[in-house]
């Protein structure tokens, strides 16, 4: 769980503007007082968000159009010389398109893994049994654990020299040699099937699925509990088999939730920096755009190019989410 949490609930519940009681005539003095107090109470948050979030975002635009480097930082102001140079440089730089493709593969595959696993978990834990509460709580562990600890354990487990996975892979599964899961850019294969992504990218997608499926699991479980029992009972009376029940009763009820989860997980995976930076450092075919932005900012000290790249990332994300909402939006809005 990284810092800023967008409220996942927002799109799920309809914007609940609890209309404050219509102030009757003669109580307008209280209405005026309410307005005054309202501004008073909201202003600290408003100020801190405006200064620490909104202004910086606007400033990013200014930085992206200037030649700002860490070295000449002190001479740069709002009124510098503006140009599109950063954008041209970033868009034509080697590896940018690759990074974009990698980001897309990572986001789509990671989202699919997380939601797929979450769905399986939610279905498997649908019926009560002894200890279900504890199992459910355990399912949430990957999601609440600090990302640094989780990535460290994973990279230790996947380590080619003393990692557990490679130990059992070579001793039990008959791998001819240990696999460098996080540093190998060789194409990953499963059961002889070439996946056309590097081993490392495959591993970070699996990590993303592992770490984020509890989120999907929570939402889907909540939605499943809201399906009236009578639906399933009626289906049984009509002779529906378990898979038919899933296909015709449960899945249609879950689709709106899955649609919302898809948007949320896609956005967060697309913006994800921590996981890949910590697991692979962006090497071996896992260089996503966020890691490139970090590299430009810190290692090259090229603030302007970093800002331009971050803006391009945000713009692409906005377009993708916009297209998705346009295609699937309206009808499935109420989840």
């Amino acid at each position, binding site marked *: 769980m990284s*810092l800023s949490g967008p409220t996942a609930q927002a799109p799920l519940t309809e914007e609940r503007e609890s209309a404050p009681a219509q102030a009757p005539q003669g109580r307008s003095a209280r209405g005026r007082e309410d307005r005054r107090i309202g501004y008073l109470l909201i202003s600290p948050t408003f100020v801190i968000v405006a200064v620490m979030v909104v202004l910086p975002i606007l400033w990013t635009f200014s930085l992206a159009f200037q030649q700002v480097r860490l070295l000449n930082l002190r001479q740069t102001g709002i009124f510098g010389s503006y140009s599109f140079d950063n954008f041209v440089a970033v868009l034509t730089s080697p590896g940018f398109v690759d990074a974009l493709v990698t980001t897309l593969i990572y986001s789509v595959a990671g989202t699919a893994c997380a939601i797929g696993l979450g769905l399986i978990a939610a279905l498997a834990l649908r019926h009560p049994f002894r200890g279900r509460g504890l199992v459910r709580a355990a399912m949430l562990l990957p999601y609440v*654990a*600090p*990302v640094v600890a989780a990535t460290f354990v994973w990279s230790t487990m996947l380590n080619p020299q003393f990692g557990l996975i490679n130990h059992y892979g070579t001793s039990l599964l008959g791998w001819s040699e240990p696999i460098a899961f996080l540093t190998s850019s060789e194409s990953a294969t499963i059961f002889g099937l070439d996946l056309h992504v590097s081993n490392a990218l495959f591993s970070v997608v699996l990590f993303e699925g592992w770490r984020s499926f509890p989120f999907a699991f929570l939402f889907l479980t909540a939605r499943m509990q809201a399906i009236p029992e009578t639906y399933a009972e009626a289906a049984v009376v009509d002779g529906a088999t378990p898979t038919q029940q899933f296909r015709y009763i449960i899945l249609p009820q879950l689709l709106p939730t899955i649609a919302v989860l898809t948007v949320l997980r896609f956005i967060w995976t697309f913006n994800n920096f921590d996981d890949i930076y910590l697991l692979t450092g962006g090497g071996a075919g896992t260089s996503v755009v966020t890691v490139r932005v970090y590299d430009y900012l810190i290692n090259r000290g090229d603030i302007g190019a970093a800002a331009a790249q971050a803006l391009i990332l945000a713009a692409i994300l906005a377009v993708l989410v916009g297209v998705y909402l346009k295609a699937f939006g309206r009808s499935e809005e109420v989840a």
Partner: protein
Amino acid sequence: MSRDLVERRLLAVLRPIIIVTLLVVTVFPFYYMVMLSFRPLDSVLQDPGALWPSWGEIDLDTYKEVLTPTADGGQGFLTFIKNSLLVAVGTVVLTLIVSIPGAYAVSRLEFFGRRQIGALFLGVYFFPAILLAIPLFVFFTRIGQRGTLTGLLVVYVAQVAAVSIYMLRNYFDTIPASLEEAAAIDGCTRLRAMWHVSLPLAMPAIASNALFIFMIAWNEFLFALLFLVERRDNWTVSLGLSQLAGSIEVPTTVLMGGSVILTLPIIVMFFLSERWLAGGLTAGAEKG
């Protein structure tokens, strides 16, 4: 055998298998973390496949080394814990101070721009964190506050305040306004009604919100990395672990001890407050 019967039998077998597999997949990495932290590095290298430590090799030296100050040859995690606690507790306190009144205002009071402010707070959070990181990095570098815990604290508060408002607002919405109206009839002002009527009722939500904010701040990595990396004495536990994980000099088992120290508070808090938090997680979630 009918299709129905086949499917039922199959699922009866598959279900427990899936549950056990999922349980192993989610829990095992954490078990592995704890186990490695109790084993000396040599025996891990000799027998990497061991699923439990053998008798006699269990030792707590890893923890001793990880906690000992660097001056005495350890890794100095005690300092990191202190820094993490300072930042996390500070974030919780400051955030609640601004977000409780804010949430109350957004939930209860009709004022111009209320909807717009709500939308602004929300919209901001779908921005990539890395985009926000650039100007903040530049800004704090310029005012010379980049290596300080205070700078990090301010950034954290700004990032979580809006989420906190959103979660608390939903709770305030469920408290009947009639309670406050009754207080108003008795001559209470708005602020007094808020303080004496709604706030005590919202305590459970505030407590779970506090835990949630603490977890976010404790786990945070990107801004800690950008702001503090050059100042080892100011590292948080997350940052310290990630920085030392790259070096060859520090044994993996010692860092596993560090991982346990980083993870344990979160897991303990999580299980203590699971009922509260499960709702909070879906409400406040994460941004990668």
